[in-house]
């Protein structure tokens, strides 16, 4: 509606003016339904801008529509997005088959018999009003009984990334503090915090490897090509051939390794040892960037012998000022006053305190982490490590990639922190060709304090998990559901996530869900978790919905973006925001009004305007109110789906400015080789786990280190395949068609397989020594994985009988191999801390 742009219109590059004619710049007129009257036969094709929702990378797309049907989804060909340029991947191209998937949930379903949970029996079709009323009555009862905190929302990446802002006001309205997301603790938090401890930001939407300018790139614990978030893939891929060297550190020969100059098959979980040895070489051979360290990092910061900051004061801009040793005046001075800050040496201050700069401590710390020491742990030859470190430090600009997922090992945070420090040593952070902040990174609002009753806060305090709240620990939710620890959660909304597959322990998670008073599952497909639901609410696909205005993540630009409905909903489905609002409306006017009040406060838009626009135009009204308030040009937004507010050069300039001015979002505003944030958290860290949260760096072994005892036992490296992302893809018929056979299988090294009599294509039994469970799988016997490690994809293993396009042979349900178990800093997952036993079936 109002989006009748033809291909020809787009081809005209003067289309901005053209669009102005087509779409009134006055915000509301275009919303009037312009129903094409009397048109028989072929409708003209239209291009509707949107945002892909097949994976969390949020690519900007154009949807080609004719006669009310989606014909093709493509990248924004005529106005490249600062995120994915004009490209999309196989998943994005296959979005049509998510929309037209006959397995979709087509109407609300209610099940009255709780005993049938875990099966698909007993569901009946219901009206939206009945479903809303049932939920509303239940919630009102809880509120009346003062049991609001028993309510929680668990969101998937889509809800977490873009809809959380619209879900939290719902929770507030019903008095619950409990909004949690599976991506945070189950996917990336420990990695993100590792980066945050160095540069103040660390989510993959906030930081970006400068693929366009880096010359020497090290990629570890990730697979850019094989997971292909296009924002990274397009930059990494188009620069192939330009890099001086790409090194991939991975136990398995990934798609990214295929593009690399060197593959280092490291022992799983030991990347930290390799990074520490790199520090040893770079510092020992004085290959570090001394100027960078003095100017932009807290390497000169004086610490006492107990490894505590000597003296700090809080500056006017909220940043912490610290003391350094000024070699010019031979005394301790505030860092900004030093003419010649010392990086090395031991000094005694006027007040008689023995102090050393952070860098001196670091130097001493890594002295013993020699390449020979690391070879023993990592199984990477010392000469290779030495060479890697030398090349990395002398081929500038060089960077260790940001990573994406990071919840594999107990030492996840420390590993990424070390990666950050190695980058700092060669002067790469926030510099061209290194790691830069994205537009979202620059724009991020100040973190809010979680409500004191938030389940992760209470749980974290009880179990001494200092970052449980920041990491939205799903373990806290699991314990609350399963054991009432720290208090019971009895009513759960699961929105666009599949906890039985995503939270560690499929069986345990299912049992916990069975204990709930009410489980509402909001999804597009009948996923495994939906079988445990009392109420299933079907959602629009991303091609059938309008959306609010979002800040653009991932891109090196500041921009806003939104989705426009490409086609009318195929079935009796609704937008998740409509559902939340509908439930509150059924609870009563008070609740409904509160939603708009809280939402208005959250997004800085007048609450009455939000309500009015929503009532007139639905979810699109929310976008309009936001766009009007933020003065976003609507015609451009309508045409492109995004509006760039600050371009890449501006973002890069601001990145450098933050570095120059010492205003990074770290406590000191500097790149922190000694993390004051970690120092602060040290108290909350249990003694036996202190290795994993020290504020400098430290060798913290993975739990599985050297635990492989026999030829039939293996470490597990898992990863992604390019055609799949969680539930959005696993039942997509055409993505199933495109998935290469070996990607469904368990990769096992040829020699190791021969010892066990396993041949390619054999059925095997994978037994997890952690969960004790055995699962069937098919073996891919290959030269492309370490002999002591098996590799498999996390994306398969759905059990739901309603997903008809899932594969018809055994694949591993990864959560079957795990138990609810968490890393020490954030209560996040540590999914690769398992050993499996393999035998021929």
């Amino acid at each position, binding site marked *: 509606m109002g989006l009748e742009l033809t*291909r020809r219109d787009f*081809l005209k590059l003067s289309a901005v003016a053209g669009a102005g004619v087509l779409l009134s710049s006055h915000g509301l007129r275009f919303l009037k339904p312009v129903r094409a009257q009397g048109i028989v036969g072929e409708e003209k094709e239209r291009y509707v801008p949107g945002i892909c929702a097949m994976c969390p990378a949020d690519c900007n797309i154009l949807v080609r529509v004719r006669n009310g049907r989606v*014909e*093709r*989804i*493509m*990248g924004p*060909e005529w106005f490249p997005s600062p995120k*994915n340029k*004009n*490209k*999309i*991947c*196989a*998943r*994005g*191209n*296959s979005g*049509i*088959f998510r929309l*037209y*998937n*006959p397995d979709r949930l087509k109407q609300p379903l209610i099940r009255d018999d709780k005993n049938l949970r875990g099966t698909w029996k007993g569901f009946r079709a219901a009206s939206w009003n009945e479903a809303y009323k049932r939920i509303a009555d239940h919630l009102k009862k809880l509120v009346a009984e003062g049991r609001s905190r028993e309510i929680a929302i668990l969101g998937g990446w889509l809800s977490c990334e873009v809809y959380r802002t619209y879900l939290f006001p719902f929770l507030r309205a019903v008095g619950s503090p409990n909004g949690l997301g599976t991506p945070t603790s189950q996917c990336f938090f420990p990695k993100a915090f590792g980066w945050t401890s160095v540069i103040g930001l660390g989510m993959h939407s906030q930081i970006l490897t400068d693929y366009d300018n880096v010359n020497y790139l090290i990629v570890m614990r990730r697979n850019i*090509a*094989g997971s*292909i978030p*296009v924002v990274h*893939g397009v930059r*990494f*891929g*188009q620069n*192939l*051939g330009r890099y001086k060297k790409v090194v991939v550190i991975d136990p398995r*020969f990934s*798609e990214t*390794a*295929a*593009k690399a100059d060197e*593959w280092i*098959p490291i022992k799983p979980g030991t990347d930290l040892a390799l990074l520490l040895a790199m520090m040893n070489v770079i510092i020992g051979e004085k290959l570090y960037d001394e100027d960078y360290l003095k100017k932009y990092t807290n390497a000169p910061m004086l610490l006492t012998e107990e490894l505590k900051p000597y003296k700090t004061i809080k500056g006017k801009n909220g940043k912490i000022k610290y003391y350094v040793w000024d070699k010019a005046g031979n005394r301790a001075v505030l860092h900004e006053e030093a003419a010649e800050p010392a990086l090395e040496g031991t000094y005694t201050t006027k007040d008689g305190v023995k102090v050393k700069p952070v860098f001196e401590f670091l130097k001493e710390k890594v002295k013993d982490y020699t390449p020979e020491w690391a070879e023993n742990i990592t199984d990477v030859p010392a000469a290779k490590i030495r060479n890697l470190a030398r090349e990395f430090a002398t081929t500038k600009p060089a960077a260790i990639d940001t990573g994406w997922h990071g919840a594999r090992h107990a030492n996840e945070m420390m590993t990424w922190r070390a990666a950050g420090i190695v980058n700092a040593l060669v002067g790469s952070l926030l510099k061209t060709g290194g790691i830069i902040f994205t537009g979202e990174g620059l724009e991020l609002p100040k973190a809010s304090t979680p409500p004191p009753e938030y389940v992760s806060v209470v749980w974290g305090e009880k179990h001494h998990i200092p970052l449980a709240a920041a990491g939205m620990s799903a373990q806290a939710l699991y314990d609350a559901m399963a054991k009432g620890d720290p208090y019971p959660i009895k009513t759960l909304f699961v929105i666009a996530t599949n906890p039985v597959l995503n939270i560690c322990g499929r069986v345990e998670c299912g049992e916990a869900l069975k204990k709930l008073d009410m489980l509402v599952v909001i999804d597009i497909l009948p996923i495994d978790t939906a079988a445990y639901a009392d109420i299933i609410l079907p959602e629009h696909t991303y091609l059938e919905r309008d959306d609010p205005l979002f800040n653009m993540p991932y891109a090196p630009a500041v921009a806003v973006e939104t989705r426009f409905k490409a086609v009318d909903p195929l079935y009796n489905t609704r937008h998740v925001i409509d559902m939340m609002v509908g439930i509150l409306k059924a609870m009563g006017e008070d609740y409904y009004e509160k939603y708009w009040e809280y939402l208005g406060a959250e997004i800085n838009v007048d609450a009455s305007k939000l309500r009015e626009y929503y009532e007139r135009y639905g979810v699109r009204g929310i976008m309009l109110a936001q766009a009007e308030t933020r003065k976003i040009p609507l015609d451009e937004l309508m045409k492109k789906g995004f509006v760039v507010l600050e371009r890449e050069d501006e973002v890069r300039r601001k990145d450098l400015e933050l570095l120059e001015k010492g205003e990074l979002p770290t406590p000191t505003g500097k790149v922190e080789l000694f993390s004051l944030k970690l120092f602060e958290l040290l108290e909350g860290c249990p003694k036996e786990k202190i290795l994993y949260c020290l504020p400098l760096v430290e060798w913290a072994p993975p739990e599985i280190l050297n635990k492989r005892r026999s030829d039939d036992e293996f470490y597990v490296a898992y990863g992604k395949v*390019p055609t799949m992302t969680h539930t959005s893809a696993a039942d997509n*018929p*055409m*993505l*199933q*068609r*495109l998935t*290469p056979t*070996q990607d469904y299988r368990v990769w096992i090294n*040829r*020699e190791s397989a021969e010892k066990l009599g396993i041949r390619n294509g054999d059925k095997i039994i994978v037994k997890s020594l952690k969960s004790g469970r055995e699962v069937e799988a098919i073996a891919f016997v*290959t*030269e*492309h*994985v370490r*002999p002591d490690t098996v590799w498999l994809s996390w994306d398969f293993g759905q059990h739901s009988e309603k997903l*008809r*396009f899932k*594969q*018809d042979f055994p694949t591993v349900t990864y959560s079957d191999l795990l138990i609810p178990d968490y890393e020490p800093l954030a209560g996040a997952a540590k999914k690769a801390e398992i050993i499996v036993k393999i035998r021929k079936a």
Partner: protein
Amino acid sequence: MTRYAMIIDLNKCLGCEACAAACIAENRRIQALKTIEKAAGSSDAYKKVRDFWLRTRVIPVYTGKYPFSKLVFMHNICLHCDNAPCVAACPTGATYQRPDGIVLVDHTKCIGCQYCVYACPYGARAWDPEINAIDKCTFCEHLLAEGQPPACVQTCPAHARIFGDLEDPESEVARIVRENKNVHRLGSDWRAKAGVFFVVNPEFKELAGNPKFPDKEEELEKHQPLYRLAGWGVFALTVLGLAGHIIYWTAKKSGEEGEA
């Protein structure tokens, strides 16, 4: 003159299969939706969708020995050859090559004999019951006509598929063919000259062992008798089958005979 050509840079291809997915959406969407609908009603839905034919595919080829492992993503697509065996094999002239090099099938003339399917060395054609004709890559000529690149080229994140006019010295394809030493034109020593070029490092020359990638003369020689045999077979089958087909064809498409 225009000679449309595609370059597939295997050094850049990330193996993501965006090309194959874009091709389904652009060119075989209706067939895919029908396949899905039929599969959903069957007890072996997965098998049915796995059998869905693709105009272009990405084939990961794993070689090397640990830890010197190697992986390259081979592509399968119609090469739009000059002197194409499929054109030669077609008894009705349904398969033809346009002056700009694109090999197409005229659906109205196709009688479904599938000789071209057997004649094609690259497995790039298949009988499509939904359109009642042979289906194959068209270089998205319907998009070219509107000034858009083929769907696979448009979507490729790594810019590994490059499209343009070989006769235009300024074009990217002409420049790469001219300058890149690692460009291979399949069949260059044989009578069929391909319109699709591959950029591939010498280390992957061993791929020539794959019958879908015969880039060495010996390999082609090895395959050639097969084509000759196929050619004779085609001839014999044509003689035997033509009469029957013509009866079927005239009955079915009599209205279009003027065009034929």
